[in-house]
Protein backbone atom coordinates (compact mmCIF):
# COMPACT_ATOMS: atom_id res chain seq x y z
CA UNK A 1 0.00 0.00 0.00
CA UNK A 2 1.40 3.35 -0.98
CA UNK A 3 1.10 5.83 1.84
CA UNK A 4 0.45 9.51 1.41
CA UNK A 5 3.57 11.22 2.71
CA UNK A 6 2.05 14.68 2.92
CA UNK A 7 0.55 14.35 6.39
CA UNK A 8 3.95 13.26 7.69
CA UNK A 9 5.63 16.52 6.69
CA UNK A 10 3.96 18.87 9.18
CA UNK A 11 4.11 16.15 11.80
CA UNK A 12 7.85 15.66 11.27
CA UNK A 13 8.45 19.40 11.26
CA UNK A 14 6.41 19.68 14.44
CA UNK A 15 8.40 16.89 16.05
CA UNK A 16 11.67 18.54 15.07
CA UNK A 17 10.50 21.95 16.28
CA UNK A 18 9.20 20.44 19.50
CA UNK A 19 12.47 18.62 20.12
CA UNK A 20 14.47 21.78 19.42
CA UNK A 21 12.33 23.89 21.74
CA UNK A 22 12.41 21.26 24.44
CA UNK A 23 16.18 21.12 24.20
CA UNK A 24 16.40 24.90 24.54
CA UNK A 25 14.10 24.89 27.55
CA UNK A 26 15.95 22.03 29.24
CA UNK A 27 18.48 24.48 30.66
CA UNK A 28 17.20 25.67 34.04
CA UNK A 29 16.34 29.37 33.98
CA UNK A 30 14.27 29.73 37.13
CA UNK A 31 14.83 31.50 40.43
CA UNK A 32 12.19 29.66 42.40
CA UNK A 33 11.35 26.02 43.02
CA UNK A 34 7.68 25.29 43.60
CA UNK A 35 7.95 21.55 43.05
CA UNK A 36 7.35 19.51 46.16
CA UNK A 37 8.23 15.93 46.94
CA UNK A 38 4.86 14.51 46.05
CA UNK A 39 1.72 15.93 44.47
CA UNK A 40 -1.89 15.02 45.00
CA UNK A 41 -4.34 14.50 42.17
CA UNK A 42 -7.98 13.44 42.14
CA UNK A 43 -9.83 12.40 39.00
CA UNK A 44 -13.56 12.65 39.60
CA UNK A 45 -16.40 11.31 37.48
CA UNK A 46 -19.08 13.73 36.29
CA UNK A 47 -21.44 12.49 33.62
CA UNK A 48 -22.63 15.92 32.56
CA UNK A 49 -22.97 19.51 33.66
CA UNK A 50 -26.49 18.80 34.90
CA UNK A 51 -25.15 16.60 37.69
CA UNK A 52 -24.76 18.01 41.18
CA UNK A 53 -21.33 19.49 40.55
CA UNK A 54 -21.15 21.15 43.93
CA UNK A 55 -21.56 17.80 45.68
CA UNK A 56 -18.97 16.13 43.42
CA UNK A 57 -16.48 18.96 43.97
CA UNK A 58 -17.11 19.11 47.71
CA UNK A 59 -16.32 15.40 48.05
CA UNK A 60 -13.27 15.84 45.83
CA UNK A 61 -11.94 18.81 47.80
CA UNK A 62 -12.41 16.96 51.09
CA UNK A 63 -9.77 14.49 49.89
CA UNK A 64 -7.17 17.28 49.96
CA UNK A 65 -7.88 18.61 53.49
CA UNK A 66 -7.29 22.17 52.30
CA UNK A 67 -7.13 24.92 54.88
CA UNK A 68 -8.89 27.79 53.18
CA UNK A 69 -10.18 29.51 56.31
CA UNK A 70 -9.87 33.32 56.12
CA UNK A 71 -8.08 33.15 52.81
CA UNK A 72 -8.92 35.24 49.76
CA UNK A 73 -9.56 32.83 46.89
CA UNK A 74 -9.35 33.78 43.23
CA UNK A 75 -10.86 31.36 40.72
CA UNK A 76 -9.33 31.74 37.27
CA UNK A 77 -11.56 30.04 34.68
CA UNK A 78 -10.77 29.89 30.98
CA UNK A 79 -13.07 32.37 29.24
CA UNK A 80 -11.84 32.93 25.74
CA UNK A 81 -14.78 33.98 23.65
CA UNK A 82 -18.24 32.69 23.02
CA UNK A 83 -19.44 30.73 20.02
CA UNK A 84 -22.76 28.92 20.45
CA UNK A 85 -22.29 25.14 20.69
CA UNK A 86 -18.51 25.35 21.11
CA UNK A 87 -17.11 24.09 24.40
CA UNK A 88 -14.25 26.55 24.56
CA UNK A 89 -14.80 27.98 28.05
CA UNK A 90 -14.76 26.50 31.53
CA UNK A 91 -18.42 25.75 32.19
CA UNK A 92 -20.16 28.42 34.32
CA UNK A 93 -21.86 25.75 36.44
CA UNK A 94 -18.49 24.32 37.43
CA UNK A 95 -17.18 27.78 38.35
CA UNK A 96 -20.30 28.50 40.41
CA UNK A 97 -19.97 25.13 42.17
CA UNK A 98 -16.30 25.82 42.96
CA UNK A 99 -17.14 29.25 44.35
CA UNK A 100 -19.74 27.74 46.66
CA UNK A 101 -17.37 24.98 47.79
CA UNK A 102 -14.61 27.42 48.73
CA UNK A 103 -17.10 29.57 50.62
CA UNK A 104 -18.19 26.52 52.57
CA UNK A 105 -14.55 25.77 53.32
CA UNK A 106 -14.40 29.14 55.09
CA UNK A 107 -12.77 31.38 52.48
CA UNK A 108 -12.73 35.05 53.47
CA UNK A 109 -13.59 36.08 49.91
CA UNK A 110 -14.11 34.26 46.64
CA UNK A 111 -13.47 36.21 43.47
CA UNK A 112 -13.62 35.08 39.86
CA UNK A 113 -11.06 36.72 37.57
CA UNK A 114 -10.18 36.40 33.91
CA UNK A 115 -8.68 38.46 31.12
CA UNK A 116 -9.86 37.02 27.79
CA UNK A 117 -7.12 36.84 25.20
CA UNK A 118 -8.91 37.94 22.06
CA UNK A 119 -12.23 39.42 23.01
CA UNK A 120 -11.89 42.93 24.46
CA UNK A 121 -15.46 42.96 25.74
CA UNK A 122 -15.19 40.71 28.77
CA UNK A 123 -18.76 41.68 29.67
CA UNK A 124 -19.97 40.26 26.36
CA UNK A 125 -18.24 36.92 26.98
CA UNK A 126 -19.66 36.82 30.50
CA UNK A 127 -23.19 37.55 29.23
CA UNK A 128 -23.19 35.23 26.24
CA UNK A 129 -21.47 32.30 27.96
CA UNK A 130 -23.98 32.33 30.83
CA UNK A 131 -21.19 33.10 33.33
CA UNK A 132 -22.72 36.47 34.28
CA UNK A 133 -26.01 34.81 35.29
CA UNK A 134 -24.26 32.19 37.39
CA UNK A 135 -22.05 34.70 39.17
CA UNK A 136 -25.03 36.98 39.76
CA UNK A 137 -27.06 34.13 41.25
CA UNK A 138 -24.16 33.12 43.49
CA UNK A 139 -23.36 36.75 44.33
CA UNK A 140 -19.75 36.21 43.31
CA UNK A 141 -17.74 39.26 42.24
CA UNK A 142 -15.91 39.16 38.92
CA UNK A 143 -12.76 41.10 38.10
CA UNK A 144 -11.69 41.77 34.54
CA UNK A 145 -7.98 41.02 34.74
CA UNK A 146 -7.42 42.79 31.43
CA UNK A 147 -8.40 46.10 33.01
CA UNK A 148 -7.41 45.70 36.64
CA UNK A 149 -4.91 47.93 38.45
CA UNK A 150 -1.45 46.78 37.45
CA UNK A 151 1.73 46.16 39.41
CA UNK A 152 5.11 45.47 37.82
CA UNK A 153 6.51 42.16 39.09
CA UNK A 154 10.01 40.83 38.44
CA UNK A 155 9.74 37.43 36.77
CA UNK A 156 10.89 34.46 38.82
CA UNK A 157 12.04 32.64 35.71
CA UNK A 158 13.86 33.90 32.66
CA UNK A 159 12.70 31.82 29.71
CA UNK A 160 11.35 34.83 27.76
CA UNK A 161 14.03 37.30 28.74
CA UNK A 162 11.31 39.79 29.68
CA UNK A 163 12.63 40.30 33.24
CA UNK A 164 9.30 41.67 34.52
CA UNK A 165 5.58 41.63 33.75
CA UNK A 166 2.79 44.00 34.68
CA UNK A 167 0.22 41.88 36.50
CA UNK A 168 -3.25 42.54 37.92
CA UNK A 169 -3.29 43.56 41.57
CA UNK A 170 -6.28 41.27 42.26
CA UNK A 171 -4.30 38.15 41.44
CA UNK A 172 -1.18 39.27 43.31
CA UNK A 173 -3.04 39.96 46.55
CA UNK A 174 -5.02 36.70 46.48
CA UNK A 175 -3.96 34.08 49.04
CA UNK A 176 -5.15 31.09 47.03
CA UNK A 177 -5.23 31.04 43.23
CA UNK A 178 -7.22 28.26 41.58
CA UNK A 179 -6.61 27.67 37.88
CA UNK A 180 -9.79 26.30 36.30
CA UNK A 181 -8.93 25.41 32.71
CA UNK A 182 -11.08 23.87 30.05
CA UNK A 183 -9.23 20.74 28.97
CA UNK A 184 -8.47 21.22 25.29
CA UNK A 185 -5.95 21.02 22.52
CA UNK A 186 -4.25 24.15 21.27
CA UNK A 187 -2.94 24.73 17.77
CA UNK A 188 0.13 26.65 18.99
CA UNK A 189 1.04 24.97 22.30
CA UNK A 190 -0.34 21.46 21.82
CA UNK A 191 -2.60 21.64 24.86
CA UNK A 192 -4.31 24.35 26.86
CA UNK A 193 -4.54 23.23 30.49
CA UNK A 194 -3.98 24.79 33.92
CA UNK A 195 -0.59 26.34 33.12
CA UNK A 196 -1.58 27.75 29.72
CA UNK A 197 -4.77 29.04 31.38
CA UNK A 198 -2.59 31.47 33.32
CA UNK A 199 -2.04 33.48 30.12
CA UNK A 200 -5.34 35.06 31.14
CA UNK A 201 -3.73 36.89 34.04
CA UNK A 202 -1.56 38.91 31.66
CA UNK A 203 -3.42 42.18 31.18
CA UNK A 204 -4.64 43.21 27.75
CA UNK A 205 -4.60 46.86 28.81
CA UNK A 206 -0.80 46.62 28.75
CA UNK A 207 -0.02 43.78 26.33
CA UNK A 208 -2.98 44.03 23.93
CA UNK A 209 -5.65 41.68 22.65
CA UNK A 210 -4.34 39.09 22.00
CA UNK A 211 -1.30 39.21 24.25
CA UNK A 212 0.83 39.05 21.14
CA UNK A 213 4.13 39.77 22.86
CA UNK A 214 3.83 36.39 24.64
CA UNK A 215 3.45 34.65 21.28
CA UNK A 216 6.56 36.38 19.98
CA UNK A 217 8.52 35.48 23.10
CA UNK A 218 7.36 31.86 22.76
CA UNK A 219 4.20 30.40 24.23
CA UNK A 220 5.96 27.65 26.20
CA UNK A 221 8.56 30.08 27.53
CA UNK A 222 5.85 32.56 28.53
CA UNK A 223 3.86 29.86 30.32
CA UNK A 224 6.92 28.96 32.40
CA UNK A 225 7.70 32.58 33.31
CA UNK A 226 4.09 33.35 34.24
CA UNK A 227 3.61 30.19 36.33
CA UNK A 228 6.91 30.77 38.13
CA UNK A 229 5.82 34.28 39.05
CA UNK A 230 2.12 33.72 39.81
CA UNK A 231 1.81 30.58 41.91
CA UNK A 232 -1.11 28.29 41.13
CA UNK A 233 -2.19 26.81 44.46
CA UNK A 234 -4.84 24.46 43.16
CA UNK A 235 -6.35 23.23 39.91
CA UNK A 236 -9.92 22.31 39.02
CA UNK A 237 -9.89 21.24 35.38
CA UNK A 238 -13.11 20.99 33.39
CA UNK A 239 -12.85 17.75 31.41
CA UNK A 240 -16.56 16.95 31.52
CA UNK A 241 -16.72 18.01 27.90
CA UNK A 242 -13.21 18.68 26.63
CA UNK A 243 -12.09 19.84 23.17
CA UNK A 244 -9.93 18.13 20.55
CA UNK A 245 -8.61 19.13 17.14
CA UNK A 246 -8.12 22.77 16.20
CA UNK A 247 -8.37 24.24 19.71
CA UNK A 248 -8.56 26.58 21.51
CA UNK A 249 -11.43 28.09 19.50
CA UNK A 250 -12.36 25.85 16.62
CA UNK A 251 -11.97 22.33 17.96
CA UNK A 252 -14.54 19.61 18.39
CA UNK A 253 -16.26 18.82 21.71
CA UNK A 254 -14.98 15.59 23.23
CA UNK A 255 -16.76 14.26 26.35
CA UNK A 256 -14.34 12.90 28.95
CA UNK A 257 -16.84 13.03 31.84
CA UNK A 258 -14.12 13.94 34.32
CA UNK A 259 -13.07 16.76 36.63
CA UNK A 260 -9.40 16.79 37.57
CA UNK A 261 -8.33 18.29 40.91
CA UNK A 262 -4.70 18.76 41.91
CA UNK A 263 -2.54 20.73 44.31
CA UNK A 264 0.12 21.10 41.61
CA UNK A 265 -0.39 22.56 38.10
CA UNK A 266 2.22 20.34 36.46
CA UNK A 267 0.69 17.22 37.98
CA UNK A 268 -2.76 18.40 36.90
CA UNK A 269 -1.62 19.05 33.33
CA UNK A 270 0.33 15.81 33.06
CA UNK A 271 -2.74 13.92 34.28
CA UNK A 272 -5.06 15.73 31.86
CA UNK A 273 -2.62 15.01 29.03
CA UNK A 274 -2.69 11.32 29.89
CA UNK A 275 -6.49 11.40 29.98
CA UNK A 276 -6.31 12.87 26.47
CA UNK A 277 -4.04 10.05 25.30
CA UNK A 278 -1.03 12.36 25.03
CA UNK A 279 2.46 11.92 26.41
CA UNK A 280 3.10 14.76 28.91
CA UNK A 281 6.86 14.33 28.55
CA UNK A 282 6.55 15.48 24.94
CA UNK A 283 4.68 18.65 25.86
CA UNK A 284 7.38 21.26 26.15
CA UNK A 285 6.04 23.39 29.00
CA UNK A 286 4.99 20.36 31.08
CA UNK A 287 8.39 18.76 30.64
CA UNK A 288 10.24 21.99 31.52
CA UNK A 289 7.76 22.84 34.29
CA UNK A 290 8.49 19.47 35.92
CA UNK A 291 11.98 20.80 36.72
CA UNK A 292 10.69 23.43 39.14
CA UNK A 293 6.92 23.98 39.08
CA UNK A 294 5.60 20.53 39.94
CA UNK A 295 5.66 16.83 39.22
CA UNK A 296 4.78 15.23 35.91
CA UNK A 297 5.74 11.67 36.80
CA UNK A 298 2.92 9.38 37.92
CA UNK A 299 5.33 7.89 40.45
CA UNK A 300 5.43 11.24 42.25
CA UNK A 301 1.64 11.64 42.44
CA UNK A 302 -0.81 10.38 45.00
CA UNK A 303 -3.98 9.52 43.11
CA UNK A 304 -6.81 10.34 45.48
CA UNK A 305 -9.61 9.62 43.03
CA UNK A 306 -9.92 7.32 40.04
CA UNK A 307 -6.81 5.92 38.37
CA UNK A 308 -5.53 7.57 35.18
CA UNK A 309 -6.78 5.80 32.09
CA UNK A 310 -5.93 6.88 28.56
CA UNK A 311 -8.89 7.00 26.18
CA UNK A 312 -9.43 4.27 23.59
CA UNK A 313 -8.80 6.89 20.91
CA UNK A 314 -6.36 9.68 21.75
CA UNK A 315 -7.37 13.27 21.17
CA UNK A 316 -7.13 14.66 17.66
CA UNK A 317 -4.43 17.30 17.22
CA UNK A 318 -3.42 19.64 14.42
CA UNK A 319 -0.70 17.95 12.29
CA UNK A 320 2.18 19.86 13.93
CA UNK A 321 1.35 18.28 17.28
CA UNK A 322 0.43 14.74 16.32
CA UNK A 323 3.75 13.62 17.79
CA UNK A 324 2.34 14.34 21.26
CA UNK A 325 0.25 11.20 21.16
CA UNK A 326 1.49 8.44 23.42
CA UNK A 327 3.84 6.20 21.46
CA UNK A 328 2.72 2.99 23.15
CA UNK A 329 -0.89 3.76 22.37
CA UNK A 330 -1.21 1.34 19.47
CA UNK A 331 0.43 -1.45 21.45
CA UNK A 332 -1.95 -0.93 24.33
CA UNK A 333 -4.94 -0.84 22.01
CA UNK A 334 -3.95 -4.18 20.47
Amino acid sequence: MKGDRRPFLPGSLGLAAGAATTALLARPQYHVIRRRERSRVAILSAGSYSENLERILRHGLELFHLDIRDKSVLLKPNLVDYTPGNHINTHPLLVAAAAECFRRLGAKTVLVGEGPGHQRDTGLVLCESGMADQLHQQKVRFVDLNRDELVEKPLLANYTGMKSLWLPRSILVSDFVVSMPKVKTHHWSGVSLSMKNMFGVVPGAKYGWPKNILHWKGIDRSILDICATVPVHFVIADAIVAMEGNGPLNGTPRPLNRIVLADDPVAADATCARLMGLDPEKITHIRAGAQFLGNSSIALMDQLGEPVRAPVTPFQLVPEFEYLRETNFLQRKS
Partner: protein
Amino acid sequence: MDDPQRANLLCLEQLVARQLPQGGWPFHSRAAQAAVEPTALTLLALPSTLIRERERAIRFLLQIQNPNGSWPAFVGDGGGGSGFTGLALYVLCRCGVGGKSTDRAIRWLLHSRGWESHWLWKWKFRTTDRRVRFDPDKFGWPWMPKTVSWVVPTSYSLLALKNCIPGSQEGLLQLRIRRGVEMLYDRICPQGGWNAGNGVVYGRPLAPHPDATAIALLALGGEPVNDFVTASLDWLERHAQFCFAPWSLAWTTLALNAFRRASQHLISRLAVIVASDEIDDCATLAVVSMALTCANGLNAFGVHS
Protein backbone atom coordinates in the same frame (compact mmCIF):
# COMPACT_ATOMS: atom_id res chain seq x y z
CA MET B 1 -35.66 55.61 33.47
CA ASP B 2 -35.25 54.90 29.76
CA ASP B 3 -34.83 58.47 28.56
CA PRO B 4 -31.45 58.65 26.78
CA GLN B 5 -30.81 62.20 27.93
CA ARG B 6 -31.40 61.36 31.58
CA ALA B 7 -29.35 58.20 31.23
CA ASN B 8 -26.52 60.20 29.71
CA LEU B 9 -26.65 62.71 32.55
CA LEU B 10 -26.28 59.81 34.97
CA CYS B 11 -23.27 58.51 33.01
CA LEU B 12 -21.66 61.94 32.99
CA GLU B 13 -22.23 62.44 36.72
CA GLN B 14 -20.53 59.14 37.42
CA LEU B 15 -17.65 59.93 35.09
CA VAL B 16 -17.05 63.33 36.68
CA ALA B 17 -17.10 61.74 40.14
CA ARG B 18 -14.52 59.16 39.09
CA GLN B 19 -11.94 61.58 37.68
CA LEU B 20 -8.69 61.07 39.55
CA PRO B 21 -6.80 63.98 41.15
CA GLN B 22 -4.18 63.98 38.38
CA GLY B 23 -6.92 64.43 35.76
CA GLY B 24 -7.17 60.96 34.23
CA TRP B 25 -9.59 58.09 34.64
CA PRO B 26 -8.91 54.50 35.68
CA PHE B 27 -10.62 51.49 34.12
CA HIS B 28 -12.33 50.31 37.32
CA SER B 29 -14.25 52.80 39.40
CA ARG B 30 -12.38 51.77 42.56
CA ALA B 31 -8.91 51.90 41.01
CA ALA B 32 -6.44 54.74 41.43
CA GLN B 33 -4.30 54.03 38.37
CA ALA B 34 -5.19 56.31 35.47
CA ALA B 35 -5.07 54.76 32.01
CA VAL B 36 -5.05 56.30 28.55
CA GLU B 37 -8.02 54.53 26.98
CA PRO B 38 -10.63 55.42 29.64
CA THR B 39 -9.22 58.94 29.88
CA ALA B 40 -9.30 59.56 26.14
CA LEU B 41 -12.77 58.08 25.71
CA THR B 42 -14.11 60.08 28.65
CA LEU B 43 -12.58 63.27 27.31
CA LEU B 44 -14.39 62.61 24.05
CA ALA B 45 -17.66 61.98 25.91
CA LEU B 46 -17.58 65.04 28.15
CA PRO B 47 -19.65 67.96 26.83
CA SER B 48 -17.87 71.24 26.17
CA THR B 49 -19.64 72.76 29.18
CA LEU B 50 -17.52 70.69 31.56
CA ILE B 51 -14.56 72.96 30.94
CA ARG B 52 -12.59 72.24 34.14
CA GLU B 53 -12.79 68.45 33.82
CA ARG B 54 -11.83 68.58 30.15
CA GLU B 55 -8.87 70.86 30.76
CA ARG B 56 -7.58 68.63 33.55
CA ALA B 57 -7.91 65.58 31.32
CA ILE B 58 -6.07 67.27 28.45
CA ARG B 59 -3.31 68.38 30.80
CA PHE B 60 -3.04 64.84 32.13
CA LEU B 61 -2.71 63.34 28.65
CA LEU B 62 -0.05 65.85 27.68
CA GLN B 63 1.86 65.22 30.92
CA ILE B 64 2.07 61.47 30.48
CA GLN B 65 3.00 61.54 26.80
CA ASN B 66 6.29 59.74 26.24
CA PRO B 67 9.31 61.75 25.01
CA ASN B 68 9.16 59.85 21.70
CA GLY B 69 5.62 61.16 21.07
CA SER B 70 3.74 57.97 21.89
CA TRP B 71 1.46 57.38 24.83
CA PRO B 72 1.87 54.67 27.46
CA ALA B 73 -1.11 52.44 28.21
CA PHE B 74 -1.36 53.71 31.80
CA VAL B 75 0.52 55.73 34.40
CA GLY B 76 3.77 53.93 35.23
CA ASP B 77 3.95 52.06 31.93
CA GLY B 78 7.26 52.14 30.07
CA GLY B 79 8.18 54.60 27.38
CA GLY B 80 8.03 52.32 24.35
CA GLY B 81 4.54 53.37 23.28
CA SER B 82 1.20 51.62 23.20
CA GLY B 83 -1.64 50.87 20.81
CA PHE B 84 -3.64 53.64 22.47
CA THR B 85 -1.42 56.37 20.98
CA GLY B 86 -3.75 56.79 18.02
CA LEU B 87 -6.77 57.19 20.30
CA ALA B 88 -5.04 59.79 22.50
CA LEU B 89 -3.93 61.75 19.45
CA TYR B 90 -7.37 61.56 17.84
CA VAL B 91 -9.07 62.85 20.97
CA LEU B 92 -6.60 65.68 21.48
CA CYS B 93 -7.04 66.75 17.85
CA ARG B 94 -10.82 66.68 18.31
CA CYS B 95 -10.34 68.91 21.37
CA GLY B 96 -8.41 71.39 19.28
CA VAL B 97 -5.02 70.62 20.81
CA GLY B 98 -2.15 71.04 18.37
CA GLY B 99 1.49 71.97 18.37
CA LYS B 100 4.61 70.06 19.35
CA SER B 101 2.83 67.32 21.31
CA THR B 102 0.57 66.28 18.50
CA ASP B 103 3.33 66.70 15.91
CA ARG B 104 5.53 64.31 17.89
CA ALA B 105 2.65 61.85 18.20
CA ILE B 106 2.01 61.97 14.44
CA ARG B 107 5.70 61.35 13.74
CA TRP B 108 5.69 58.37 16.12
CA LEU B 109 2.59 56.91 14.47
CA LEU B 110 4.04 57.36 11.00
CA HIS B 111 7.09 55.31 11.98
CA SER B 112 5.36 52.70 14.14
CA ARG B 113 4.31 49.64 12.17
CA GLY B 114 3.33 46.03 12.58
CA TRP B 115 6.27 43.65 12.41
CA GLU B 116 4.81 41.77 9.48
CA SER B 117 6.11 44.67 7.39
CA HIS B 118 9.71 43.70 8.22
CA TRP B 119 11.32 41.71 5.38
CA LEU B 120 12.22 38.79 7.63
CA TRP B 121 8.69 38.35 8.94
CA LYS B 122 7.24 38.95 5.50
CA TRP B 123 9.32 36.02 4.33
CA LYS B 124 8.20 33.92 7.33
CA PHE B 125 4.51 34.63 6.79
CA ARG B 126 4.83 33.95 3.06
CA THR B 127 6.76 30.70 3.36
CA THR B 128 6.84 28.83 6.67
CA ASP B 129 3.98 30.25 8.73
CA ARG B 130 0.82 29.71 6.68
CA ARG B 131 -1.50 29.02 9.60
CA VAL B 132 -2.73 32.57 9.51
CA ARG B 133 -3.46 33.87 6.04
CA PHE B 134 -2.83 37.53 5.41
CA ASP B 135 -0.89 39.78 3.12
CA PRO B 136 2.09 41.15 5.10
CA ASP B 137 2.43 44.02 2.60
CA LYS B 138 -0.78 45.37 4.08
CA PHE B 139 0.17 46.43 7.56
CA GLY B 140 -1.11 48.72 10.26
CA TRP B 141 -0.25 49.31 13.91
CA PRO B 142 0.51 46.91 16.79
CA TRP B 143 -0.57 46.94 20.44
CA MET B 144 3.09 46.97 21.47
CA PRO B 145 6.28 47.69 19.55
CA LYS B 146 7.83 44.64 17.87
CA THR B 147 4.57 42.76 17.41
CA VAL B 148 2.24 42.50 14.43
CA SER B 149 -0.69 44.73 13.45
CA TRP B 150 -4.08 44.32 15.05
CA VAL B 151 -7.47 45.73 14.16
CA VAL B 152 -8.15 48.05 17.11
CA PRO B 153 -4.79 49.88 17.32
CA THR B 154 -4.82 50.19 13.52
CA SER B 155 -8.32 51.66 13.63
CA TYR B 156 -7.42 54.11 16.43
CA SER B 157 -4.34 55.19 14.47
CA LEU B 158 -6.33 55.65 11.27
CA LEU B 159 -8.87 57.80 13.11
CA ALA B 160 -6.00 59.96 14.37
CA LEU B 161 -4.14 60.32 11.09
CA LYS B 162 -7.31 61.06 9.14
CA ASN B 163 -8.37 63.78 11.57
CA CYS B 164 -5.16 65.52 12.55
CA ILE B 165 -3.35 68.23 10.64
CA PRO B 166 0.17 67.05 9.87
CA GLY B 167 3.00 69.55 10.07
CA SER B 168 4.96 67.73 7.40
CA GLN B 169 5.37 64.28 5.83
CA GLU B 170 2.01 64.54 4.08
CA GLY B 171 3.08 61.90 1.55
CA LEU B 172 4.03 59.35 4.22
CA LEU B 173 0.84 60.11 6.10
CA GLN B 174 -1.30 59.34 3.06
CA LEU B 175 0.70 56.17 2.41
CA ARG B 176 0.23 54.93 5.99
CA ILE B 177 -3.49 55.70 5.84
CA ARG B 178 -3.77 53.75 2.60
CA ARG B 179 -1.80 50.78 3.98
CA GLY B 180 -3.87 50.78 7.16
CA VAL B 181 -7.14 50.76 5.24
CA GLU B 182 -5.82 47.94 3.03
CA MET B 183 -4.81 45.99 6.13
CA LEU B 184 -8.33 46.24 7.55
CA TYR B 185 -9.86 44.96 4.33
CA ASP B 186 -7.25 42.18 4.15
CA ARG B 187 -8.01 40.87 7.65
CA ILE B 188 -11.83 41.07 7.43
CA CYS B 189 -13.82 38.00 8.46
CA PRO B 190 -15.41 36.08 5.58
CA GLN B 191 -18.92 36.97 6.77
CA GLY B 192 -17.99 40.63 7.28
CA GLY B 193 -16.82 42.32 10.47
CA TRP B 194 -13.51 42.01 12.26
CA ASN B 195 -12.02 39.75 14.89
CA ALA B 196 -8.94 40.94 16.84
CA GLY B 197 -6.67 40.38 13.85
CA ASN B 198 -6.98 37.75 11.16
CA GLY B 199 -10.32 36.63 9.83
CA VAL B 200 -9.15 33.08 9.09
CA VAL B 201 -6.82 30.83 11.11
CA TYR B 202 -5.99 27.26 10.12
CA GLY B 203 -8.51 27.53 7.30
CA ARG B 204 -11.35 28.23 9.73
CA PRO B 205 -13.16 31.56 9.66
CA LEU B 206 -13.14 33.44 12.95
CA ALA B 207 -16.25 35.13 14.29
CA PRO B 208 -16.26 38.92 14.22
CA HIS B 209 -16.20 40.94 17.43
CA PRO B 210 -18.75 43.75 17.63
CA ASP B 211 -16.43 46.34 19.21
CA ALA B 212 -13.53 45.68 16.82
CA THR B 213 -15.98 45.75 13.90
CA ALA B 214 -17.53 49.03 15.01
CA ILE B 215 -14.18 50.75 15.64
CA ALA B 216 -12.85 49.55 12.27
CA LEU B 217 -15.97 50.88 10.55
CA LEU B 218 -15.54 54.26 12.27
CA ALA B 219 -11.93 54.29 11.06
CA LEU B 220 -13.14 53.57 7.53
CA GLY B 221 -15.46 56.56 7.61
CA GLY B 222 -14.97 58.67 4.52
CA GLU B 223 -13.75 55.71 2.45
CA PRO B 224 -15.98 54.70 -0.46
CA VAL B 225 -18.65 52.30 0.80
CA ASN B 226 -17.94 48.87 -0.62
CA ASP B 227 -19.13 45.29 -0.10
CA PHE B 228 -16.81 44.84 2.91
CA VAL B 229 -18.32 47.81 4.70
CA THR B 230 -21.89 46.84 3.83
CA ALA B 231 -21.39 43.23 4.97
CA SER B 232 -19.85 44.45 8.23
CA LEU B 233 -22.69 46.86 8.91
CA ASP B 234 -25.20 44.09 8.15
CA TRP B 235 -23.39 41.77 10.57
CA LEU B 236 -23.36 44.44 13.27
CA GLU B 237 -27.10 44.99 12.84
CA ARG B 238 -27.79 41.27 13.14
CA HIS B 239 -25.56 40.83 16.18
CA ALA B 240 -27.02 43.90 17.88
CA GLN B 241 -30.46 42.29 18.01
CA PHE B 242 -29.30 40.07 20.88
CA CYS B 243 -26.51 42.18 22.37
CA PHE B 244 -26.92 43.45 25.93
CA ALA B 245 -23.26 44.01 26.85
CA PRO B 246 -22.86 47.80 27.17
CA TRP B 247 -19.34 48.13 25.68
CA SER B 248 -20.20 46.23 22.49
CA LEU B 249 -23.68 47.70 22.25
CA ALA B 250 -22.40 51.26 22.60
CA TRP B 251 -19.67 50.86 19.96
CA THR B 252 -22.23 49.20 17.67
CA THR B 253 -24.59 52.15 18.13
CA LEU B 254 -21.87 54.66 17.30
CA ALA B 255 -20.90 52.82 14.11
CA LEU B 256 -24.43 52.19 12.86
CA ASN B 257 -25.36 55.80 13.60
CA ALA B 258 -22.26 57.07 11.77
CA PHE B 259 -23.28 55.10 8.70
CA ARG B 260 -26.89 56.31 9.03
CA ARG B 261 -28.29 52.93 9.92
CA ALA B 262 -31.15 52.64 12.45
CA SER B 263 -29.82 52.94 15.98
CA GLN B 264 -32.64 54.48 18.02
CA HIS B 265 -33.74 51.11 19.42
CA LEU B 266 -30.17 50.41 20.55
CA ILE B 267 -29.96 53.80 22.24
CA SER B 268 -33.18 53.01 24.13
CA ARG B 269 -31.75 49.66 25.18
CA LEU B 270 -28.58 51.33 26.44
CA ALA B 271 -30.66 53.79 28.46
CA VAL B 272 -32.43 50.87 30.15
CA ILE B 273 -29.09 49.17 30.89
CA VAL B 274 -27.71 52.37 32.46
CA ALA B 275 -30.82 52.67 34.64
CA SER B 276 -30.78 49.05 35.79
CA ASP B 277 -27.15 48.52 36.67
CA GLU B 278 -24.16 50.67 37.48
CA ILE B 279 -21.42 50.38 34.89
CA ASP B 280 -18.17 49.92 36.77
CA ASP B 281 -15.76 50.29 33.88
CA CYS B 282 -15.04 53.95 33.05
CA ALA B 283 -14.11 53.28 29.41
CA THR B 284 -17.43 51.49 28.94
CA LEU B 285 -19.33 54.25 30.69
CA ALA B 286 -17.72 56.83 28.39
CA VAL B 287 -18.60 54.93 25.19
CA VAL B 288 -22.15 54.41 26.46
CA SER B 289 -22.41 58.14 27.12
CA MET B 290 -21.27 58.90 23.57
CA ALA B 291 -23.75 56.41 22.14
CA LEU B 292 -26.61 57.94 24.15
CA THR B 293 -25.68 61.34 22.73
CA CYS B 294 -26.49 59.98 19.27
CA ALA B 295 -30.14 60.43 20.27
CA ASN B 296 -29.55 64.17 19.89
CA GLY B 297 -28.12 63.76 16.40
CA LEU B 298 -24.54 64.04 17.64
CA ASN B 299 -21.86 61.44 17.01
CA ALA B 300 -18.63 61.89 18.91
CA PHE B 301 -16.73 60.25 16.07
CA GLY B 302 -18.27 62.66 13.64
CA VAL B 303 -17.96 60.37 10.64
CA HIS B 304 -20.72 60.21 8.11
CA SER B 305 -20.27 58.04 5.11
